[in-house]
Every structure is written in structure tokens, then in C-alpha cells.
């Protein structure tokens, strides 16, 4: 019974993975046979200033987006862990950014950040703060900032709702005991909530790092890596080189460059997630 799905995954995940490594060792224009070139593609990446810019972009993007999602998500979870009316409806609404197809919501963000017609810039102009207002996606720093904000917008619900589920497993008796021992609200947060929430925070963060690090959709829709490669991530740069430039081998080598940093995270996490006997 277990053989068909395993064979399916080996054929469509295992084989492409190996084939990708093979491609990265070839000079392989699209629709033409490749020639084996050894590590030449990786050497070329190493000497490509854009490659290093992409690496830096990816780390900046991942770091800031993850930290903001973690802090914001924890805040959201704490706020929602109180008793209030319509809690379930609020929770359903909060998750919307995570449910709605990313490309479609990003289209709304793109228009929200349009240099001429952004409502943010309309307010800036109308209150005489700035005229014509910043070009959100045209300036390299602002473009990266915008991407991070949209990524946080999309990922925050995942953090919030998962951490909320984590909070709800903490027994109220622990808080009562801490209160009796004279702990303040802050003490209870630091000494009861955080330590017990740590495993959940860890897993959510690992997930988020992996998928932020390998993000494609947001950048592809919002900036296409521009202006001047300032927002290219590994995934979008590999896409441009392989699909736009037709250099499958080079593209594969760029995509594979994601592997060493990701592999460390993935291995650590797979070990952690190994099913515990319950």
C-alpha cells in the first residue's frame, strides 16, 4: 500500500532533485542538449556580483520579515487569547490574508503602492507632508521595505493563529500558581508563557524561514526583482536566468545555492518533527 505514493514522490520530487544537481553541472541552453562543465556554473555564480546581491537581499528579506512576523504574531496571539464576543469570526477574518491566493492579494498591494495612485501618497500630498510622495516600488530601499511589509501581512495570521493554539494549551492553573507566588503580568509572560510556547515558536519560525527564504510569488508580482536587482531573491533570480535567459544550468546552480543554508534548517527541523509516540 505504501509503495505507490513513495514511488510517486520519488519520481516527482526525488528524481527532479537529483536531475537538478545534474543540470547545475551542465551548460544547458533551453531545448538543446547540454554539455558537462563541472563546477563552472558555481564558479560563475561566485564571480557574479548580482549573485551576491541576491544572497544579501534574501537574507535581509528573510531576517526582517521573520522577526516582524514573530513579534507581531505573538502580539496578535496574546490579544486574541482574551475572552471576547465574536472571537471565532474574528479569527476567521484574521486568517484571510493566508487563505486568499497570494498573487491575487499582491495585485491589490501593487495598486496600493502605485507611485501615482497610491492612497498613502494621496494622504501625504493632501496633508502636505510629501509631494508627489515616495515611489514605493521604484526606490531600492523602499521596494525591499514594501516587500517585507506585504510578506508580514500575508504571514502574520499563520503565526498569530498557530501561537494562539499554543497559548490555549497552557493550563490556566500555572498562571494562578504564579499569581499566588506574586508574579506580575510581565513576570507571568516571561516565566510562564514564553518558555511553554518556545517549541511552537520554534517550529513556526522554522517553517516561516524556509518559505520566506524561498519566496517567489510576492517578488515576481510586485517588483520582478527590481529596481536594478535590489529585490531579487534566489528564487526569482534563478527563474530569470533559467526561464528568461534560457540558461537552465546556470539557473539550476543558483537555485541549488539555496540548499546549504536551507538544508541546515530542514535537517534540524525534520529531526525535531519526527513523530513522537503518543
Amino acid at each position, binding site marked *: 500500500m505504501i509503495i505507490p505514493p513513495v514511488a510517486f514522490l520519488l519520481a516527482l*520530487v526525488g528524481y527532479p532533485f537529483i536531475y537538478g544537481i545534474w543540470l547545475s553541472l551542465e551548460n544547458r541552453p533551453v531545448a538543446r542538449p547540454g554539455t558537462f562543465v563541472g563546477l563552472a556554473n558555481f564558479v560563475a555564480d561566485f564571480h557574479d556580483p548580482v549573485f551576491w546581491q541576491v544572497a544579501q537581499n534574501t537574507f535581509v528579506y528573510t531576517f526582517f520579515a521573520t522577526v516582524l512576523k514573530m513579534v507581531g504574531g505573538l502580539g496578535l496571539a496574546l490579544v486574541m487569547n482574551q475572552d471576547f464576543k465574536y472571537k471565532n469570526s474574528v479569527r476567521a*477574518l484574521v*486568517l484571510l490574508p493566508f487563505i486568499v491566493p497570494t498573487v491575487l492579494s499582491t495585485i*491589490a498591494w501593487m495598486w496600493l503602492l502605485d507611485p501615482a495612485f497610491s492612497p498613502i501618497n494621496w494622504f501625504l500630498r493632501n496633508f502636505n507632508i510629501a509631494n508627489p510622495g515616495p515611489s514605493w516600488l521604484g526606490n531600492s530601499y523602499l521596494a525591499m521595505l514594501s516587500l517585507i511589509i506585504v510578506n508580514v501581512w500575508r504571514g502574520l495570521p499563520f503565526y498569530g493563529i498557530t501561537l494562539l493554539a499554543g497559548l490555549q494549551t497552557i493550563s490556566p492553573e500555572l498562571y494562578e500558581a504564579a499569581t499566588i507566588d506574586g508574579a506580575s503580568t510581565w513576570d507571568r*509572560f516571561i516565566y510562564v508563557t514564553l518558555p511553554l510556547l518556545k517549541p511552537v515558536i520554534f517550529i513556526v519560525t522554522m517553517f516561516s524561514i524556509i518559505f520566506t527564504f524561498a519566496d517567489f510569488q510576492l517578488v515576481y508580482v510586485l517588483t520582478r526583482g527590481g529596481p536594478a536587482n535590489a529585490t531579487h531573491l534566489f528564487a526569482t533570480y534563478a527563474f530569470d536566468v*533559467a526561464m528568461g535567459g534560457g540558461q537552465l544550468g546556470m539557473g539550476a546552480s543558483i537555485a541549488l545555492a539555496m540548499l546549504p543554508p536551507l538544508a541546515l534548517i530542514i535537517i534540524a*527541523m525534520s529531526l525535531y518533527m519526527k513523530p513522537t509516540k503518543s
Partner: protein
Amino acid sequence: MMVERGGFRIKLLRLWLPLGAFMIFTLFPFYWMAVTSLKPNSELYNRKIMPLIVYHPTMKHYVDLLTETNFLVWTWNTFLVAVVSTVISLVFGTMLAYPLARMKFSGSALISFGVAATYLVPQPLLFIPLADIITSLGLGDTLTAVMLTYPTLLIPFCAWLLMGYFRSVPSELEDAARIDGATRLQTMFKVFLPLCTPGFISAGIFAFTLAQNEFLYALIFLTQTDVRTVPVGAIAELVKGDVFYWGQLMAAALLGSVPVAIIYSFFVEHYVAGLTAGAVKQ
């Protein structure tokens, strides 16, 4: 952090203000989507007027979207692909999860490690070799291409979630059925799987939304308008060079989001259960 018995002030400060801020941040882009899709072009491209309200709402963009583009075809493709890949993923996910949860055999630790690792392999690592493989199989520009590749993203997740669910079902009922003379397969289909319906709904709804959301494979494999899905169709055909059809784009974004949101709203609890299953050990 329970709210102690306090006045309305404390509740306002601790609950309603932060919650309100979160909600505005969360929902504003959707509001913007809706407002924009209803604006006539004269308001859409007017920098003077206040942009957050519609003065003369029009359905023109929706009508244009439905009559002048292949939006309905894309919607049907998206739906079909999501349903087929969800079904494949649930079946294969069960075939993986049941043995791993209920039987002892050599290699099971390796397979469950493999499933977890596959779950975490991001798409961008695979899309270039996959594009080449799909082309050489002659599957370019067919829905089969995405129906085959989406399950690779969904099966590991489904298997993982179902495995946890299967383990939580006590085995006494199955033991009783076996003692009464049922075969292993009879026990599985008549006794065990029906008990796991909530697990299937969770995995299914999660897989379905993920499949609706997928973009990279669809972008690469589907380049003809009649096989495109909504996200790819919108990006590829409502943006012509530097010209963005903003009204239609927003109408497409909204109409493309509504089916997912409706289906999701019926199964929020199951969705949340699926979402948190990986991270929160019950």
C-alpha cells in the same frame, strides 16, 4: 494573559485597540480591492479625488472581465486542478499515513523522515528540472502537468496531518472488528477510515486552498490562455507590457478570492486544526 475584572478602559486598551489595528491592517487590502474594482476609469486614474471611496460605482470591469477575457475558463481550470490534486493527495496521503501509523515494518522511520523532508523542500529548488522533465514528457501546456506536480506539494502535508490523526484514534475498535473476523482491509475501510472523517476534511481543505494558491508551477507549465489558472491568467493577460488593466485586475483578484474564502468559511475550524497540527502537539 487573561483580562482581569477591570473597567471598560482596560478592555479597550488591551483588547479592542490592538485588535482593531490588526484587523485594519489585515482587511484594508481587501477593501481596496473591492473599491478599486467598482471605480470607473475616470475615478481610478484621478489623482485629485479621495481614493478610498467610490463616487459612481460601476460593474463595467466585472462585465469586461467576464466577457473579454478567459476568466471563466481560468476559474474552471483552477477549480478542476485543485479538486483533482486534492483527491490524489488525500488518497496517496492515506496510503502513506496508514501503514506508518498502524503497522510496524522496516524502513518506516526512513519513510517518515523522507515525508517530513519532502514537506520542507521549497518549490524553487525543483522548478527548473521539473520544467525540463514536463517538457520532455510532452506535458507542457496541459492541466495534467499541474495535476501531477501539485500533489508533490500536498501529499507530504496530508500524510503528516493524517498520521497524527490516525495515531489519535484508539485501536480498540479495530481490534474488535478483527476479532469478529474482518480482514485488515475491511477493518480499514469500514471501521477506521470513517472514524477519521474530520482529519480528512482538515487535510482536504488545507490542500485545496494550497492548490488554489499555487503560482510558480502554473506560471511555468501553463503558457496558453485556455489552460491557465486564475493567478497566472490575471498576471499574464491583464498586464500587457506596461499597461495594467487595474479595474479588471482587481475584479479578477476579488472574484478569484471569493470561492476560496467561501469554502474556507464553512470549514474554518477544520482549517485551523490543519494549520496548527504540525506545530502544536496535541
